[in-house]
């Protein structure tokens, strides 16, 4: 694999990595991705732990015959889709920032 392929000959990777623009991009990505993933991880395993160790609680009828467990199960899909939608919206900013970063490299 040759990282210097393409129009950019030997970019100075360390310089780009240290630039404020790139550090800003990384910090921004981290501030969305880390909490979003941790939230989903906790939400999913929280649901599994309740199912495994609190069967009486999740057997409560929450809406008509529907149990709390069934609603929590369906909510996994809703929460997953919501995270995906929020990420799509947020990530357009990441794309803009990285385009800016690449454009600046070309002019200098």
């Amino acid at each position, binding site marked *: 694999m040759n990282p210097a392929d393409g129009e950019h000959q030997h970019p100075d990777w360390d310089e780009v990595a240290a630039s404020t623009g790139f550090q800003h*991009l990384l910090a921004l990505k981290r501030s969305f991705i880390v909490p979003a*993933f941790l939230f989903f991880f906790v939400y999913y395993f929280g649901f599994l732990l309740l*199912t495994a160790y609190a069967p009486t609680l999740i057997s409560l009828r929450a809406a*008509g015959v529907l149990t709390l467990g*069934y609603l929590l199960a369906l909510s996994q899909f809703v929460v997953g889709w919501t*995270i995906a939608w929020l990420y799509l919206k947020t990530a357009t900013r990441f794309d803009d920032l990285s385009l800016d970063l690449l454009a600046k490299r070309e002019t200098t």
Partner: protein
Amino acid sequence: MSISLAIFLVFIAASLGITYWASRHSRGAGAYFAAGRKITAWQNGFAVAGDFMSAASFLGVVGLIALQGFDGFLYAIGGFVAFVTILLLIAEPLRNSGKYTLGDVLAYRLRPRPVRAMAATSTLATILFYMIAQMVGAGALVRLLLAGSGISYNLAVSGVGALMVVYVVFGGMLATTWVQIVKAVLLSTCTLILAVLVLGHFHFHGGEFFAAATQVAYHEKGQPVVRDFLLPGLRYKPPYGPLDLVSLGFAFIFGSAGLPHILGKFYTVPDATTARKSVVWAMGLIGSFYVMTSVLGLGAASILGPDYILSHGGTNMSGPLLAQVLAGQIMLALVTAVAFATILAVVAGLAISASTSFAHDFWLNVIHHGKERKSGETVLAARVATFVVGAVSIAIAIALGPESNVGILATMGMAVAASANFPVLLLSIFWRRFNTMGAVAGLSVGLLGSLGLILAGPTFMGIDGPNSEGMARHLFQVRPWFPLENPGIVSVPLGFLAAFLGTIVTREPGAEAKFNELTVRAHTGLGAEKAEVR
């Protein structure tokens, strides 16, 4: 049954047409292995869904829900959750830093030969388990649904294998992608029709539908019972059931994010932005599919009842039986044909992924140090490998026979992917200090650890009574050394731990120095592989 055969033949004809078209539009390695990186977001979303939703999900999950209610539904959720992991952590960095395989990402800053050799090994192991599960499923389906048509188990397995080889050898990734897109449309439509039929049976009244699921009457060990299928506990029973369930969660949330055939799909799009959008498309399709499987499963439980299902072909036939009872022979034929199309599209994805890893990781980069002596050699090696993959899978599937447990095989593949592939992939992208020793340790301990724990668990070990024979009998007649069926809760941390320990006992300044390069590339796409221009 001839309608079913006719629909299936139309699918085969269409897929061969796609293969012919793809073969005329593919030149060179980038086209063969990655469809020229020109697949659009919605196309790749459908292809990923088509690659992922296997016969195990369509037939297996509906069956699990039909017999075990809420506990079976947990499998449907498990199929979906990994895509959040893929979306947030894997798809974009993978697309930006690799070329065709999981091994590419590892080899970017680690010593290429050892990590590629290990990555290829664990890729092939994961895929082999999956592949055989699909092939056995195809053969079993034929036996049950086309009984009397003259098509035997062996013929069905060989036919599926041969078609898969044709798609992959002649049409490469482009043909595979389009076969998967067509299949995803067929499967989603078919599932939607069935879900509407089920709800229609209950007058489109949600309360009536769920109320029926709370009183499912059947026989258990000869005794009549009435159970509430919305309540947990029909599958995961004490003492180890609850822990087994949590352990299974590890395989689900990380497993698909380490499945080589799913990861390979993100190299077929032009850039990371498209990869991201395609995951969201896939999440929409896969999520709504699994929500519908719960409608099908609960519908099968309350309309047909477990007794009827078990006496008419067994768990896996719940979906097809439901179609037959609700809408007659034509719907049954449609569902059967779609189940076959599903298997074909999935095995094609598995075959191209296995042959790509063999040709690109092992043959080109391990044996030939990354240099082709003649242009086009790697593609040729991949084509030859496809024949071997096809032949080996057919042989093993025939040797194991139609009675073998498809669920166990797929679980093994998922456990290896979660315990071996996922930890090293994540660490190589996000941990500067990570090195070759860590990758080799993580992959080998993850692979051997997960397989070892499954072999030492209650799936393979147990003391049977004198009356059990054949497939019901445990392979090893001893008390299980490891109490859980699903090793994830131990094997995933074990994979991470081995990767961590392997890393800290050695230092690799070269790998650390290249971390900046990988990070910039992974997060900006600077220097990433571009779409081919024609």
